[in-house]
């Protein structure tokens, strides 16, 4: 994961103080391309993505405001590609998603039980 070009390295973030004020997101499985914000994030906020054992998986930046408990993209996800959480698909990207984007009903759709289609 650390090699992903969309992640910020600790050096890129700069001083330790910015890392201390960083928001935290929880990452559930190594296959995931989204993580859950454990606090509210505003556009531009640095987000430290941690695994459940507390280790830092990667560091990214929120492209927009994200509500606590909602998801942030950790990679670019092309339109129609799977959004992965818990190691499994939770639906498809509806439009292209950029690393750091807020991921919710506006850009992620379920493929299950869709009698309306």
């Amino acid at each position, binding site marked *: 994961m650390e090699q992903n070009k969309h992640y910020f390295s600790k050096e890129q973030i700069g001083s330790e103080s910015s890392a201390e004020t960083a928001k935290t997101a*929880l990452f*559930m499985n190594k296959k995931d391309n989204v993580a*859950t914000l*454990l606090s509210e994030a505003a556009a531009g906020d640095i987000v430290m993505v941690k695994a*459940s054992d507390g280790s830092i998986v990667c560091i990214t930046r929120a492209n927009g405001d994200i*509500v*606590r*408990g*909602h*998801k942030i993209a950790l990679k670019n996800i092309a339109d129609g590609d799977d959004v992965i*959480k*818990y*190691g*499994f*698909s*939770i*639906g498809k990207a509806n439009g292209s998603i950029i690393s750091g984007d807020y*991921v*919710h*009903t506006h850009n*992620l*759709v*379920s*493929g*299950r*039980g*869709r*009698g*309306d*289609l």
Partner: protein
Amino acid sequence: MKLKMFKRANGTFGVRNRIAVIPTVACVNHVAEKIAAAVDIADAYTHPYGCDQLGADLTLSFECLRLMGTHPNTGAVLVVGLGCEEILPHELYEAIKTEQPDTELIVMQEFGGTTDTVERGIEICEAFKEKLLKQERVDADISELTVGLECGGSDFTSGIASNPSLGKMAEKLINAGAKVVFGETTELMGAEGILKELCENEKDYDFICDRIKRVENTAIDMKVDLRGTQPSPGNIDGGLTTIEEKSLGAVCKIGQCKIVDAIAFGEKAKKHGGITFVDTPGNDIACSLGIACAGAQVLVFTTGRGTPMGFAAAPMIKVTGNSRIAKVMKENIDIDLSGIIDADMTIDEGGKLVYEAVIKTAEGEECAAEKLGHRDFSLYRISPILT
């Protein structure tokens, strides 16, 4: 491991010793409620049905009421009938009485009006109460205990904190010798990959997938978007975007337990040594009924958004991982696991807390829903009202 429980005539053991006042039709609900309200250990098992039911739907309603009357937590039963309904009061009475000797029947069209029936019903329940209060708990092996897992009002905390803790609890209970059951078929849609890994037998995996597909096909046949209710508006506000995401969080509540059986709604769980799937809707009260019919004497319910619901036949322990709800609905919550998200509590510690609460509840400690009088009940209808 031994637990203090109430021994029943049919050889089962209950964690509660209450009276079930069971109306056979909605028309007598008020009478059942008046009777139960007058006796502190009696609960009215009211429901909107009993009439205009046909075929498998009628059979299931009858069977569910029979299973409530013979449930291990039920110490005595009063069946209240009207006299012209399809759930035949005399038949239900006889069916319960074969396993539960302390069963009585009043049929209003044979006996009298509201006032007289309520008065007679209270007399019967007072006599039951006198007997039940004298009964003492005895040592029972933990293998006599069945625990039901549920989640409702889910949010992002459910899949991160409370459900994984339930998973640890379920593993501990199974290792100790108890049976564990779970349901909520709709909320497994998208979690098939995990179920495949956990099912010991391919036939059980096929059964679960078939039941998930039935729900999905019903939505497709009705030309509705399942997203209207799954996830619900509250789930979506709480960070769950799709049914797949909700399901993958929901399935965490079975942890790494092997699935050893898969049964239909209204069937009893038989197997130890793993978890049993029961085909129930995600709807909380219908799920509670399904897993109580499977034999669960204690229900453990995780909630991120918060819900006060309880169930008539079994104590329902409320667990949350959401710190806001743990404060706002404090009196409704038994176990606050928000420390997993906000502090340094581990999932193992969470699991241990819930496990200990289950044991205490099984031995008589009242949970929040019981203290507050939440003893809800309904039947689960599987066909539309045709007539």
